[in-house]
């Protein structure tokens, strides 16, 4: 018992320290560089103020609603998938009930139920039942992770850990129960304590009864027993019944007992029950100690995130709290994969094997980023690519069962990387439209700088060396046309008969008094230059990068040239060349 207590305290200590550490990161870390204005102190104060103001306002009703619907009933998961709801509810319900009834029996069960005995009905039955719930949930989890073949669903070591630790706790519990049922040693102990006075014959009768009806495996005695002996045993057992329901009620443990019965005596002598007991509680303590560092931390952070999500608004909430919330959200993620399976650009992963394209995987990268650790340039590039392939469609945010505002997280992460000075060419694409919409939140200075950096990158690479207005064969690149012809949309460039409708329709062109001076080439010229294979001339033209992607040119083209799509493909070609050349970008 000494060992039990010591290990419990150690586990609790680690848990507490871990918890404090984790919570402290919520206030210390941030995606954007910490400034004097957003200091940890101020963030704690802001959080406290925010919580107090929320709790003592009508928002408390919202919180209650969230507590019931989203936290207890998990309606978000239910909407997403019935299977997962069952899985989660079985694990979480079963485990919580076990925790309260079994693990904390001294403080909870005994207080609530005066006649509580773990070996008495209904508790003996419920314990196994709850355990079975957890096991069933785990079964579903394993089935989902290993057999369902959900596209792009990633299973990390952490997911394995979570399943394994729970499985170890549950299985060791059942085994322990089974071992104890069969254990002659345990029986002897009980007899010594409670039935010491009995005669040899009486004890034999009792033993017979326990062998027959309680699944105990004796060293000496063996059935079949005569009915009068058992009847006598039953009489003697009257006092035992007060504490022991029939072990069949512990259907899992009894099953185990039946299964190990042939070897039970040997196992008992080898001290199996004790061994299993150690395993059982040590697994629990490991789980407890490791909880703040594992995905199981969501048990605590998930509800917080859901509540924060319900009452906070990126527009109006205190920026301190938004920062804090984002870091907290990173801990709330259960790596369930909802976001990834629903991601509208997730399919790109099949083509570009960068896990950071998948939202659920990006979280890990962003955690690293937020922790302020040193990340290699290559990793940053990979994160950036993942972040920029996002179309900001909001699906991930919509489906997150723990209410993480993923959208906002991505934006912050992008900005964080951009502010770190990593030039990103995608910023010139409509994929950064969302960033444009968020311009006021980002601030003009910080908004413009990365754009300029990206433009510089392009203009450094593609300088039109067509001096004195003469184009010769060396300027012409036929691979350009070849690449464009690979896709149906971009192969339409050659349909152009230069009616100039695209240029007339282009709002970018109309934005300038002297468009050709400002933009280099205008749309119809780009189509023509494409036909001539003048890659550098096109890539160096500002028009290509100023295109809004409004599709007006394409809509109005009388020849069905997918002008805007051709632009996209040209930009892709330009960017790919830069990326291929500079690995350290």
């Amino acid at each position, binding site marked *: 018992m000494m060992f039990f207590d010591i290990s419990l305290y150690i586990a609790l200590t680690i848990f507490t320290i871990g918890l404090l550490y984790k919570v402290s990161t919520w206030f210390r870390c941030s995606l954007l560089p910490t400034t004097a204005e957003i200091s940890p102190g101020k963030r704690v104060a802001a959080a406290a103020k925010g919580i107090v103001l929320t709790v003592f306002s009508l928002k408390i009703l919202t919180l209650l609603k969230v507590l019931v619907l989203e936290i207890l009933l998990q309606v978000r998961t239910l909407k997403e998938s019935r299977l997962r709801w069952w899985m989660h509810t079985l694990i979480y319900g079963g485990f919580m009930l076990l925790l309260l009834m079994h693990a904390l029996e001294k403080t909870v069960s005994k207080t609530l139920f005066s006649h509580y005995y773990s070996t008495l009905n209904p508790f003996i039955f419920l314990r196994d039942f709850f355990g079975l719930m957890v096991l069933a949930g785990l079964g579903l989890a394993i089935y989902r992770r290993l057999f369902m073949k959900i596209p792009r669903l990633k299973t990390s070591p952490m997911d394995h850990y979570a399943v394994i630790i729970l499985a170890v706790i549950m299985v060791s519990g059942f085994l322990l129960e089974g071992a104890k049922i069969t254990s002659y040693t345990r029986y002897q102990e009980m007899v010594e304590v409670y039935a010491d006075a009995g005669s040899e014959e009486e004890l034999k009768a009792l033993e017979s009864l326990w062998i027959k009806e309680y699944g105990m495996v004796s060293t000496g005695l063996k059935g079949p027993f005569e009915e009068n002996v058992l009847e006598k045993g039953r009489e003697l057992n009257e006092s035992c019944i007060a504490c022991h329901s029939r072990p069949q009620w512990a259907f899992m443990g009894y099953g185990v007992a039946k299964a190990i019965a042939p070897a039970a005596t040997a196992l008992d002598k080898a001290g199996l029950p004790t061994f299993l007991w150690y395993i059982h509680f040590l697994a629990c303590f490991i789980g407890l100690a490791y909880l703040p560092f594992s995905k199981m931390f969501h048990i605590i952070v998930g509800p917080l995130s859901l509540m924060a999500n319900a009452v906070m608004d990126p527009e109006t909430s205190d920026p301190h709290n938004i920062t804090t919330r984002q870091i907290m959200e990173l801990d709330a993620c259960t790596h369930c994969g909802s976001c990834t399976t629903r991601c509208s650009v997730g399919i790109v992963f099949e083509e570009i094997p960068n896990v950071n394209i998948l939202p659920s995987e990006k979280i890990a990268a962003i955690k690293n980023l937020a922790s302020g650790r040193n990340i290699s340039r290559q990793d940053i590039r990979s994160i950036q690519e993942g972040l920029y392939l996002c179309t900001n469609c909001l699906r991930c945010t919509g489906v997150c069962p723990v209410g993480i505002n993923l959208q906002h997280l991505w934006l912050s992460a992008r900005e964080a990387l951009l502010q770190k000075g990593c030039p990103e060419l995608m910023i010139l694409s409509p994929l950064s439209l969302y960033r444009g919409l968020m311009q006021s939140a980002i601030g003009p200075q910080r908004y413009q700088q990365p754009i300029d950096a990206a433009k510089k990158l392009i203009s450094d690479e593609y300088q039109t060396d067509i001096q004195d207005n003469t184009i010769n064969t060396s300027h012409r690149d036929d691979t350009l046309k070849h690449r464009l012809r690979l896709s149906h949309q971009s192969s339409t460039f*050659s349909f152009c008969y*230069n009616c100039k409708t695209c240029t007339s329709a282009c709002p970018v062109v109309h934005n300038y008094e002297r468009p050709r001076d400002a933009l280099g080439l205008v749309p119809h010229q780009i189509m023509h230059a494409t036909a*001539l294979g003048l890659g550098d*001339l096109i890539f160096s033209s500002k028009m290509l990068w100023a295109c809004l992607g409004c599709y007006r040119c394409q809509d109005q083209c009388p020849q069905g040239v997918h002008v805007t799509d051709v632009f996209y493909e040209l930009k892709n070609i330009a960017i790919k060349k830069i990326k291929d050349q500079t690995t350290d970008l």
Partner: protein
Amino acid sequence: MEKIVPKIGIFIWNQGGRLSQAVDLEGLVKKFSKAKNAARCEFVDELWTTAFFDSLRSAVENKQIDRFLWVGRFTSYQMKYIKGQFSAAGLNPYLHEWVDLEDQGICLKDTAPEIRAAKAASLIQMALARNRLLEPLNPMELPASDAILIIGAGVAGLHAAESLSALGKQVHLVEKESGVGGKVALLSRFYPRICDPHCGLEFTLQKLSESDHVAFHTLSRVEALSGSPGNYMAAVQKKPRYVSETKCNACGECLTVCPKEIPGAFPVSETMKAIHSPFPMSFPSAFVVEREHCPPECRECEKICPAKAVDLNQAPSEDQLRVGAVLITTGWDLYPLSKVEEYGYGRFDNIISNLEMEQLLSSHTRQPGKSAKLSLNDLKEVGFIQCAGSRDERHLPYCSSVCCSATLKQILYFKELVPEAKCYVFYQHIRSSGFEEDLYRKAREMGDVTFVRERPATVALDEQKGKLNVTVLDPLLDKEITMDLDLLVLAGGMCPSQGTRETAQVLKLPQNHYQFFESHLQCHPEEGQRTGIYVGGSCREPMNVSQSIDSSHRSAMQALKYLAGTVLIEPTYPVVNKTKCDQCKRCMEECPFSSFVFDEKEFPTPDLARCRQCGNCMGICPLAVISLNNNTIKQMAVQIEAVNTSFMGKKEPVILALLCENDAYKAARAAVDQGLPVPPNAIIIKVSCAGSVNNAVIADALSLGIDGILIGGCKDDQCHYVKGSQLVQKRSGDLSDKLKTMMIEPERVRFVNLEIRDANKYVEVLNTYIHDLKAMGPNPFKI
């Protein structure tokens, strides 16, 4: 000769009360009942009854009436009906006269009733005067041939021959080359279906060779054409082939012994022997000897020929062919590109014409191993220069209309043969009209066909690379672009072929300012300007193959009317009064259709089969001795004499409007119908063409006291008879001289161009003229 006293039946159709509301018909009937030669005069309310026509018919049969004057507005259908009613009773259809009072503004309420009454009376009086002089006329039937001469056995000629022979007409196909097929046989493909033209040609030739009605005259030329439509006589000169068309079966044995190699026609084609298969198509299959290339004394072919078909002593022969009509399908030639100096044609081997490109594209279908200077598979970058010499005032000012589509077709087919090749088209405008746009689209869809809207200024040969260095200023990018090309194809334009020019001379057929055959183009495009001579295909204007076939079929259809065995001549042809003719030959010179020929006494006389009865000869004759039957100068003179020159009262001038019945008269009529305020001053006489108005008639009219003459003709270039309006204006100089001697102001004659719907203009012209005439004062001859 018994003097015939006309018995005229005058019938005024009330048009359902419409006329009686405008004028006092009772008064008119009363007046004209007593008129000279009037057998009956009445007004009719119910005209369209059997009883009415029955009673009149019996009057005609009983010789009480021998001609009619119909007053009222009759449609051409109604006129035909009325004529039909009496032709059974023996009344010649030319003995009807029609007066449409409404056309002349009698029903216009703005005009004073007394003026209307006077004008109506004058109009009937005029018609009556003319009516007295009407003569019965009957159509003439001339015997004619049922054969046709088709000059040029290209695609147009062959297709026309096929249709006509299928109709049982005898066809003489004259071709100057040794084989038929013409330019189309030289093409590798034709659009829009990009198939091999030989397929279509062979198909047609198969039918022609099976027909009993087709005679091929290859190596032949028409040397002379005499006679007239329905009865032409063509002299056809045939060069010797030196190989019997019946004996030769093209075994090719002679090729093995012929010692003389002569160059092929194009840089991309192989050489050939002096004896060779016919060209452009080997039809007829008999070989031909180009005797001028043979070594003297060499008779190897003659010796070896297993069929004994070669006869090097063959002499030229001449045929006389009697034909009813001639169809000219002499086609086109490529404009000589060496004249377009800037593109270096002729200087470099890899600059070729579009026609040579056709040869190159079909070179792979020929036997391999012959020396060809260019090989398709070496061509990786090919440029096409459009409008090489076309739409160029220095060369061909017109668009040949086929070169754009031809180039696109060549690209499509070339890319089929050499898929990796890149093509560049230098152009001004791509004119692939109609469904040919598909070719343009398909070429663009290929992706590596680039269109640059500028024609290169210079072409140079890069001798190291062996490529052509072409520089253009790309107007879209405003940059100069240089390219290295393996081949440059010049899209040369179409000009009239050598055969077209020769035929024009022999047949004396007018050519337009581009030397193509003149044609009305709109109303009767298929007619050359000589009756019975038709033009089809691109000797008329640049055409693509299908248009050519189309055109020659239409011409063949028109030609059918002279292939019927007889030619029907309407009796309204011109007649020359030879007792008064002084043989000045103005009529011969000015006839728009050159119908006049000399008779045996050297008097000009119209060839009735050619004449289109426009009356320009009548108008031009200085002595006014030519008249159209049923529309004689005399008839016009009495009609004018009958004009009441004072029907407008003392102050208002009276105008005689001589209006062309095709356009100007219809404009005047439209003015009335549209309810425009048409001044009543004009009395209109319909004429067959403004050009048929003789100066003598005008002078006569003015001497009778008519204040002004208005001659209305079509717009100068729109005349149905080519140049009637121009001719009448040309004569105005003579007329003013004559008028001056008569002390009459030449300004009393005015010519105006009126199109068929120029109603407003007619009213405007009339008002201005009235105003001017008032300023001038009344005609001094006015009583």
